[in-house]
């Protein structure tokens, strides 16, 4: 199948490669064409041009505004994609933006899935991402073989926007768990106890988690090079709290964690791993 791919960053590039390996013909567009590098793909001049060529287009970019521009802006996908084609947006954006884009595309009979992913760069490389999809069931079935190239756990959450709501929930739990791990490591160190031993002991009990495993290890090793750049979690927390506000849901812990992320940003650690929340607690 001819598959379009926009957003060749740390996540997007390995995802695109999986589609290529599965035998699909790749078409790409990038704001900076240099990022395409040696990727085996046809480079298009605009998203619209890419849209003309492809039955399915994937986007994996940073912000709500990026996705909106690529899909609906000047020379956007909407000007090129044919009726019956599908946009699969794997970015993490606001649920209401996802709904808005889906509605505009639907006017031209172009289907859309919001299909944000979890699992990080390693999950993208291994093809083991968790994919949480919002959209029509028939749209999901249409692109399921493609999604299966990228991840093992593909869950249809509900209509458009529902995938992004699920991703917001994912980010809330994950970053709150990083903050909890950081506070535990901080308490251990401040009490003169070996952090590595504490982490090791906890990993066997009820407090065991992927975050304690991976981020806890980074904290013990004091290896704060990203992993996941904290600025992206900071961005996501803006979306989460906006969603909380829109729905009137009481989220006291999320609000507190968001402030620790603000402090992290203020201290210039936005491009380091989110395990740097430990350094915010240490005040150094």
């Amino acid at each position, binding site marked *: 199948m001819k598959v379009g791919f926009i957003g060749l960053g740390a996540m997007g590039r390995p995802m695109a490669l999986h589609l290529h390996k599965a035998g699909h013909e790749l078409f790409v567009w990038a704001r900076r064409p240099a990022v395409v590098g040696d990727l085996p793909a046809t480079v298009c001049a605009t998203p619209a041009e890419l849209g003309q060529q492809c039955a399915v287009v994937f986007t994996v970019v940073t912000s709500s505004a990026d996705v909106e521009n690529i899909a609906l802006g000047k020379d956007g996908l909407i000007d090129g994609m044919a009726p019956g084609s599908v946009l699969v947006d794997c970015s993490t954006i606001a649920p209401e933006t996802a709904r808005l884009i889906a509605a505009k595309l639907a006017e031209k009979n172009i289907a859309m899935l919001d299909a944000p992913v979890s699992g990080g760069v390693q999950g993208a490389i291994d093809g083991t991402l968790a994919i949480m999809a919002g959209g029509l069931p028939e749209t999901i079935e249409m692109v399921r073989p493609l999604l299966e190239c990228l991840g093992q756990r593909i869950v249809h959450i509900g209509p458009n926007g529902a995938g992004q709501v699920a991703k917001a929930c994912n980010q809330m739990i994950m970053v709150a768990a990083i903050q909890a791990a950081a506070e535990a490591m901080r308490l251990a160190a401040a009490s003169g106890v070996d952090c590595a031993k504490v982490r090791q002991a906890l990993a066997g009990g009820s407090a065991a988690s992927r975050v304690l495993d991976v981020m806890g290890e980074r904290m013990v090793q004091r290896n704060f090079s990203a992993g996941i750049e904290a600025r992206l979690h900071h961005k996501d927390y803006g979306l989460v709290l906006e969603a909380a*506000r829109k729905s009137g*849901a009481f989220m006291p812990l999320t609000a507190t964690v968001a*402030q620790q992320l603000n402090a992290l940003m203020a201290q210039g650690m936005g491009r380091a791993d989110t395990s740097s929340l430990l350094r915010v607690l240490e005040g150094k």
Partner: protein
Amino acid sequence: MKIGFIGLGIMGRPMALNLLKGGHSVTVWARRAESMQPLLDAGASGAANPTQAAQGNELVISMVADSPDVAEIMRGVAAAGQPGLVAVDMSTIAPAAARQIGVDLAAAGVDFMDAPVSGGEVGAIAGTLSIMAGGSDAAFAVAKPAFECMGKNIVHVGASGAGQVTKAANQIVTGMGVLAVAEAFAFAAKNGVDRSKVREALLGGFAYSKILENHGQRMLDRNFKPGFKSWMHEKDLNIVMQTAHELGLCLPGSAATAQMFNAMVGSGMGEEDSIAVLKLLENLSGQA
């Protein structure tokens, strides 16, 4: 002075009336025509739109709900094509939005000032509002006689946006202040102590504040009528939290307070005064 006034809600109407009382010639416009009638009865002229409300005036003032409203009104004001006009927005909006409107209006030769207020409906009626202004010295000089009809404590804080920054700071202090008094009362009650006595004792010490005195009394009376609606306080704290997010600023107390107001709106208390946060606390601790 010839003044245009846009937005005649709970705050705007008494403010415009005080300008009339001060001897100014006032032209009004409001989205809902019926809100204009009390002002027309009091001697104001009516305009058909914001552009008309600006035309032929030295000063135009807006008092509305949110950033998009202000931006739209000020586009209309700019369309009056009146270089030298001073436009003052007294609504509470985001500092960044105010600065942008200032830049946009400067292109049309209009000098824009943000001048949000504190003091509520009571202060608006009595003409005793606190006014915190951001913008040029020249604009402040033009607006000052109008400010003096509406307020008492009038401070030119700094450049464009500085008024809104001050108002956001005000909402941090009042938001946390209301929550602090409510928590102290919940604490006293759960300990079986008479909260009215607690209030009385605290008023004499370092915990004294206007909020303890006024809002505290209304909590004791369980008078949750607005006053200042909790959805508006939620909106204002959202401005604080969004600005903090953009700047990378850690405000843990404001964040916790914002969530309490968010929960009030979510549980149907949005139209009640923000002191109804007391009820939320009581519910959380099974004191209802």
